[in-house]
């Protein structure tokens, strides 16, 4: 992975030095190996902090809403799954495509520091990646972990390693094959009784602190002003005061991104209470696939979404239960 990072750094330098782009959006070093933060680099000096490692899970595409409106071109590093979000944002006219230089980068699956800590490892100071094994050093000792156990939730059901958009690419090694299990958990929930499902979601959503991290990180939630922040919407709510509001927020959010959500998994990655929010969006995706034919948001940067199109023979709502056309 180090070679990929070096190549990216080299390319970023070239682009900035040649003046081809005014800024490069990537990740910069944090306090630890495992906490790189998204960053915009405007000078070669700033690139001193540039990093690309197993913890660069963040989807950077949303930053382009602002960046693509700035003076000069912006180069961005997109992992395969981020490229879907990019396309979707272009489709919705949120990104000025001409102002962006997309560098498709290699991704071998990203790691989740919370999962590492959940193994009982506390006070992590260093992480080393070596192929499929990860060595974690802490103040209390050293542990070797298998990469598969500590993948980010979204990477554990990777949609595939094909970029949907790119102007150039930095891919030095073969990337792992897609993992087609993303509807398994949804199906498991579907198989439960209504009571069990209600209990499951109640318990999960009760944790919600309405911090809006899921919404604010979501590339599909790119509204200038969210209905939940807008007193004129009639459903404005700042903090949850009742179980209903948690449901309202998550139901409406899932509905608003239905047909637009690319399943990038950022919502679940950022949730401080680890609510499996992606299972909400995946339900919509699964139903759309089942009822109206397979659809992957962000596969292209144009065309209608399943909710802005129809066929005369669509299934009736009362018969649509379970998400399969009858």
């Amino acid at each position, binding site marked *: 992975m180090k070679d990929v990072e070096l190549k990216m750094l080299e390319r970023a330098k070239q682009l900035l030095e040649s003046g081809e782009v005014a800024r490069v959006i990537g990740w910069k070093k944090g306090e630890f190996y495992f906490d790189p933060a998204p960053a915009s680099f405007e000078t070669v000096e700033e690139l001193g902090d540039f990093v690309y490692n197993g913890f660069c899970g963040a989807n950077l595409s949303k930053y382009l809403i602002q960046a693509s409106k700035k003076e000069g071109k912006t180069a961005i590093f997109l992992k395969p799954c981020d490229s879907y979000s990019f396309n979707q944002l272009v489709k919705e006219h949120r990104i000025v495509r001409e102002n962006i230089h997309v560098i498709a980068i290699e991704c071998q699956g990203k790691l989740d520091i919370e999962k590492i800590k959940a193994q009982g490892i506390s006070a992590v100071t260093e992480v080393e990646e070596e192929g499929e094994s990860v060595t974690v050093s802490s103040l209390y000792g050293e542990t070797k972990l298998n990469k598969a156990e500590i993948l980010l939730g979204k990477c554990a059901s990777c949609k595939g390693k094909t970029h949907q958009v790119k102007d150039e690419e930095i891919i030095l090694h073969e990337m792992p094959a897609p993992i087609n299990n993303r509807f398994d958990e949804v199906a498991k929930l579907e198989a439960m009784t*209504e009571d069990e499902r*209600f209990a499951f979601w109640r318990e999960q959503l009760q944790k919600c602190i309405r911090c809006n991290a899921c919404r604010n990180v979501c590339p599909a939630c790119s509204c200038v002003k969210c209905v939940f922040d807008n007193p004129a919407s009639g459903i404005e709510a700042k903090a949850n005061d009742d179980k209903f509001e948690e449901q*309202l927020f998550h139901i409406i959010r899932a*509905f608003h991104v239905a047909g637009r959500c690319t399943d990038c998994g950022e919502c679940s990655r950022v949730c401080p209470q680890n609510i499996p929010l992606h299972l909400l969006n995946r339900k919509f995706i699964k139903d759309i696939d089942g009822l109206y034919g397979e659809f992957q948001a962000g596969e292209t940067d144009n065309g209608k979404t399943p909710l802005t199109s129809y066929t005369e023979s669509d299934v009736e709502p009362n018969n649509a239960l379970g998400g399969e056309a009858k």
Partner: protein
Amino acid sequence: MQEVTTKKKEFTPNIVAFCCNWCSYAGADLAGSSRLSYPANVKIIRVPCSCRVNPTFVLKAFQQGADGVILCGCHPGDCHYVTGNYYTRRRMALLFNFLNYMGIEKERTRVEWVSAAEGQRFSAVMNDFVKTITELGENKRLTDLRVKEGE
């Protein structure tokens, strides 16, 4: 136990029906002028087209304590606005499915197409829906407890 049973019997659900102006509201009018009765706990909100019904309205109704929500519109293909109800059909199919996924009883939500000529059907649909919701009981899963404070 005794008390619970009697309470259950007394339960009269509160039903919100969104009706499109051109077909279903007119169908409800026809039910009226044909004197085809349905329970008084069905209350109709007139919307220009079923496609005007935002999922937030449906949720708002449940929040405020409605026990069932039904959307009525022109039959697919007959929409006064050409395609409005086609969008309704997709939106509500997905929304209702989703609500059920969250554990909301699937019978609580319904979409029916009722033309302006179907007064009989309107009445039948409403009678049936009220019966279903009465059997299902109170909406407890999507209601906002604050709304009912003091009850």
